[in-house]
C-alpha cells in the first residue's frame, strides 16, 4: 500500500494557479524523485502536500488517511516532514537548538537523544560546531543542518526540496550518499531536484512534472533511457 498518495492536487497563489491536478504515489521504503523544469510546480506541490499552501482540489493521503486539511505542524506531528527549499534554518539559533526545534513533534521527543547521536555521526561537522549560530555556517553545512533538522523529527516520509541548489558537486555527492543510506535504513524519501541526472541515478522511481501536471513517471532506470526525458531534461 502506498504510504503517501497525492490525488489530482490543484493549488496556487492568489490568482495564479500552479498545480493542475497532479497525481503521484509512493511506496514505503522507496526513494522517489520529482523532477521538472523551473516553474513546473515542484516546490508548490511539496508545499501543498504539507498544507503550507492550501489545496484547491484533490487530496493528500498519508498511511491510508486523508490528511488534506491538516495544517503543516500537524503533518510533521504524524511523520510527514519537509526539508524546505533554501534551507530555512533558524539562523539566530545555535546548531543544537535548530536540531532541538526539529524534534518538536511528540513522536520525536522520546527518541531525541538517539536521533541526535545519529545525526551527529552522519554529519560530524555539525557536532564540532554545535554551539555556533546556524547563520554563520557555510552553504553546504547549512544544507546538512537542514537535512539533519528534518531527521530529528523522526520522519516516516521525508521530502527534500532542491537539496543540491548552489552547492559544490563534491558536497552534493556526499549528501546524496547520505540520502541513499537513509533509504537503506528504511526511510521513505521524496526528492525534488533540478539536477535530473543525479536524481534519476539515486532514486527508485521518478515523476516528471510539467506545467503543474505529472507528464511522465516510471522506474528511474527506465526513465534515464526515455528519449523525451533525455532530450528535455538531460540535454542528450
Amino acid at each position, binding site marked *: 500500500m502506498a504510504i503517501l498518495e497525492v490525488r489530482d492536487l490543484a493549488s496556487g497563489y492568489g490568482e495564479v494557479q500552479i498545480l493542475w491536478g497532479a497525481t503521484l504515489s509512493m511506496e514505503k521504503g522507496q526513494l522517489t524523485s520529482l523532477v521538472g523544469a523551473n516553474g513546473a510546480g515542484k516546490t508548490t506541490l511539496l508545499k501543498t502536500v*504539507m498544507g*503550507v499552501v492550501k489545496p484547491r482540489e484533490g487530496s493528500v493521503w498519508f498511511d491510508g488517511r486523508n490528511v488534506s486539511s491538516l*495544517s*503543516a*505542524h500537524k503533518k*510533521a*506531528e504524524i511523520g510527514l*516532514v*519537509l526539508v*524546505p527549499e533554501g534551507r*530555512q*534554518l*533558524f*539562523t*539566530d*539559533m545555535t546548531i543544537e*537548538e535548530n536540531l*532541538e*526545534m*526539529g524534534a*518538536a*513533534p511528540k513522536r*520525536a521527543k522520546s527518541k531525541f537523544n538517539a536521533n541526535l547521536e545519529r545525526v551527529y555521526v552522519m554529519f560530524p561537522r555539525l557536532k564540532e560546531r554545535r554551539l555556533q549560530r546556524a547563520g554563520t555556517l557555510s552553504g553546504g553545512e547549512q544544507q546538512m543542518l537542514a537535512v539533519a*533538522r528534518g531527521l530529528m*523529527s523522526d520522519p516516516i516520509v521525508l521530502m527534500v526540496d532542491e537539496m543540491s541548489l548552489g552547492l559544490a558537486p563534491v558536497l552534493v555527492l556526499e549528501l546524496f550518499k547520505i540520502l541513499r543510506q537513509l533509504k537503506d535504513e528504511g526511510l521513505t524519501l521524496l526528492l525534488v531536484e533540478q539536477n535530473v541526472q543525479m536524481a534519476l541515478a539515486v532514486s527508485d522511481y521518478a515523476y516528471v512534472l510539467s506545467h503543474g501536471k505529472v507528464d511522465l513517471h516510471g522506474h528511474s532506470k527506465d526513465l534515464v533511457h526515455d528519449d523525451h526525458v533525455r532530450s528535455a531534461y538531460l540535454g542528450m
Partner: protein
Amino acid sequence: MDFFAFLIDGLLIGFVYGIAAMGLTLIWGVMNVINLSHGAIITLGMFGVYLAFAELGLHPYLGIVLVGMAGLLTGMVIYAVAIHRVINAPHLSTLLATFAVNMIIIGIGTAYFTTNARNVDFSLGSVKAGPVNIQVTRLVAAAFSVAVTGSLYFFLYRTKYGKYIRAVSNNREAAELMGIPSAFILALSFGLGTMLAGIAGGMIATFFPFTILSGGTYEVKSFVIGVLGGIGNPLGALIGGILLGIFEGVMPYFTETSWVPVFEFGLFVAILLFRPQGLLGAKK
C-alpha cells in the same frame, strides 16, 4: 533637590519603563506587529492593581503578580480574537486591529471608571542613601524589573516554549514545518508582551496617580526605548528604559520640566535619523 536625587529617581523609574518597552518590542520582534493597544494595556495593569488593592484589599505586589497572570491570558485572547486574522495582512491592518483594541479598552474603561484620577494609596517609606532619600516602592520596582528581565531570558533561552518563540520569530514557516504550532506560539508571545505591559502599569500605579488615559504616555516612551535599545532584545529594552529614565530624571535639573518631552522626542528623531538600528543595535 540636588542632582543625585534627580538621577536616582529617574534611574529607578527607568527600570519600569524598560519592562513596558520589553512588552512592546517582544511583540514587534516576534510577529512584526506594532501594538497600538500597548498603552491601554498598561492602563489596565494600573487599574488591575488598583482594584486588587482598593476593592479586594490585596497587597499591591500580590496585585501585580495577579495582573501579570491575567495579562498573559488577556493577551492570548486579544491575539486570537483581533490579531490572528490579520497577521499576514499588510502592516496597516495590524495597526488598525490593535488600534481598535485600544479604543475598545479605553472606551469601556472610561464608561466604567470615568477619567478621574485614581491612586494606590500605599507607601513603604524611604531610605536614606548618603545625601538622598530613596522611596522604597521604587527600589522594589527596580529589583522586580531585574527579576522579570532575568526570568524572560531564562524562559526564552532555556525552556521549550521560549525556544519555540525564538524559532517562530526567526522563521515562522520553517517553525510550522518542523511541527511547532506557530499560531499558538504567536498567541503566547502576544500574551507575554501583554503581561509585561500589565506588570509595568501595575508598578507605575505604586508610584503615581493615574487615569484611564495615562497609558498613552508610556506607550510613546516604549517606542522611544525600542529605538534606543533595538528590537527583539530584552536587555536592550531594559538598558534603553534606564537611559530614558535617567535622561528624564536629570533634564529638569537643567531646564523647565515642560521642555523635557521636546528633548526626549528630539533625541528619538535624531536616533532614527542617524542610527536607525538603535543605539545598542538590534538583534539582526
